[in-house]
């Protein structure tokens, strides 16, 4: 059974007071809190096993190496991948950049097309702008409807000019053709919570752009719902450990073995080499080829422990919990919306939305709303959420975002809703 109160007891930080008020942490989409088990795993590594991996024959090095190998196996099992397809990186951003630099930069040619969506985090948008500019490829951007859902079908495209790139926007269907070599989309929007239909996207790609690769930004999916890369139909997927109860500095790029094998390394250095001679060097096999230098060993071990914890809760239970929370929160906020107090952004159906409630208090800048809520111990994110284009799509400067996770309670949502009512009063509106 999914017992939130029991779960909360595992998270020491939830004992914190913010200016005397209990912490109401509603910013898990930015980074999640960490259970004691993960904190202990990190301390245990540094206290008892600290040594570099793949470097020595001594006992500690062998222990550290085994611990990292075990963590890799846990990640692989968690997303139903092969172990050597799991590349440890710092975070999803680094994983996405790895694909941009080590695959796209080598594979894309002039007049090829990269398709992204308006929902993308800057980390799955800016690298593609840069690579397209560099190789002379075109950037296509999938539009969204008024609830922030991707437009899959429909005709009619728009060309945007004014910057260095000429960008075409439209529905996915209208943007796909045989020139498309990569589709890079998020599985869940960090700004609006939109769950994108990756299976339908894959079908359309197969039909209209059979040679295109699919890269999924899994940063907001992997922590919150069961993820199976074989069902996803993707070629690459990146995600961050710190958004799934793991430590900062731990992240994963998953890629299909044959593609990873065909790629050149991203970073050069220790641990990624086969044979080094002064006259030339060969590369190590997967996954080491992409893991130059000493990785965040403690971070990786912590991520492995976070995965144990998530698995013990059950990913389907976590999704059910968050679906219930977002449905509950949307219901309450829509009442406020009818009264003209707030504006809510994103899908209204909990089936199509992760645990992300995005809103503005009418007449109040999101930063000001967040600042007032902070006075009551409520932590929400405000601003453009590294997604300026999607925020602008909804004709606003900034948005406030409350995001939920395994430790979030309905009581906390009630408290948020109650305190949102206080926000306009501060500005005498």
């Amino acid at each position, binding site marked *: 059974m999914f017992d939130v109160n029991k779960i909360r007891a595992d998270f020491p930080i939830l004992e914190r007071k913010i200016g005397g008020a209990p912490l109401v942490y509603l910013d898990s989409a930015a980074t999640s809190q960490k259970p004691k088990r993960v904190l202990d795993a990190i301390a245990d590594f540094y206290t008892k096993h600290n040594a570099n991996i793949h470097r020595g024959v001594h006992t500690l090095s062998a222990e550290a190496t085994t611990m990292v190998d075990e963590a890799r196996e846990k990640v692989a099992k968690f997303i139903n991948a092969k172990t050597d397809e799991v590349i440890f990186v710092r975070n999803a951003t680094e994983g996405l950049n790895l694909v941009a630099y080590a695959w796209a930069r080598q594979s894309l040619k002039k007049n090829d097309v990269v398709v992204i969506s308006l929902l993308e985090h800057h980390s799955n948008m800016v690298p593609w702008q840069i690579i397209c500019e560099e190789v002379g490829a075109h950037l296509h951007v999938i539009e969204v409807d008024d609830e922030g859902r991707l437009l899959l079908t429909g005709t009619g495209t728009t060309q945007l000019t004014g910057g260095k790139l000429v960008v075409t926007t439209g529905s996915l269907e209208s943007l796909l053709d045989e020139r498309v070599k990569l589709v890079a989309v998020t599985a869940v929007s960090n700004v609006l919570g939109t769950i994108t239909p990756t299976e339908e996207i894959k079908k359309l790609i197969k039909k209209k752009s059979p040679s295109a690769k699919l890269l999924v930004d899994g940063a907001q999916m992997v922590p919150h719902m069961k993820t199976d890369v074989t069902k996803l139909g993707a070629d690459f997927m990146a995600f961050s450990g710190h958004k799934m109860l793991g430590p900062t500095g731990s992240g994963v790029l998953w890629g299909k073995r044959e593609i990873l094998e065909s790629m050149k390394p991203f970073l050069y250095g220790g641990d990624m080499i086969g044979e080094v001679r002064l006259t030339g060097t060969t590369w190590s096999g997967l996954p080491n080829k992409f893991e130059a230098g000493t990785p965040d060993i403690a971070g990786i071990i912590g991520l492995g422990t976070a995965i144990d914890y998530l698995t013990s809760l059950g990913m389907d239970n976590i999704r059910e919990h968050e679906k219930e929370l977002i449905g509950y929160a949307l219901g309450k906020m829509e009442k406020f919306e009818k009264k003209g107090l707030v504006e809510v952004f994103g899908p209204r159906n909990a089936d199509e939305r992760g645990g992300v409630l995005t809103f503005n208090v009418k007449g109040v800048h*999101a*930063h000001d709303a967040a*600042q007032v809520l902070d006075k009551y111990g409520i932590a929400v994110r405000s*601003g453009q959420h590294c997604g*300026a284009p999607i925020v*602008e799509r909804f004709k*606003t*400067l*900034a948005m406030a975002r409350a995001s939920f996770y395994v430790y979030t309670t309905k009581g906390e949502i009630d408290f948020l809703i109650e305190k949102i009512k206080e926000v306009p009063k501060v500005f*005498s509106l």
Partner: protein
Amino acid sequence: MDYKEEIIDHYKHPRNFGDLEEPKISVRENNSSCGDMVEVCGRLTRDGRIHVLRWRGVGCAISTAAASMLSEKVVGMNREDLTGFGEKGVVELLGGEINSGRMRCATLAYRAIIKLFEQ
């Protein structure tokens, strides 16, 4: 952090809000993380002091109040005065209680005004 009455007052009734006719120097400054934008324009005296200053923009209470308060405070200052006033001066002007997350809001207009001297 509480919103002091003075901040709310400047936010709701921004001073020197508007534009100037030519000749003028103008600077536009954005806050990439929150979408705030301020455009300041002014004229300098022959000895390089701010003679008149107007500003326009969109933003939160902190960035708006800071722009409004600065638009009164900086008249008569030269580049050296303004540099000496510094971001610390802006924080004091706002009542001294700006957390690190709001520093970019607080100093948006200041950064624009400094750039007036570079035009």
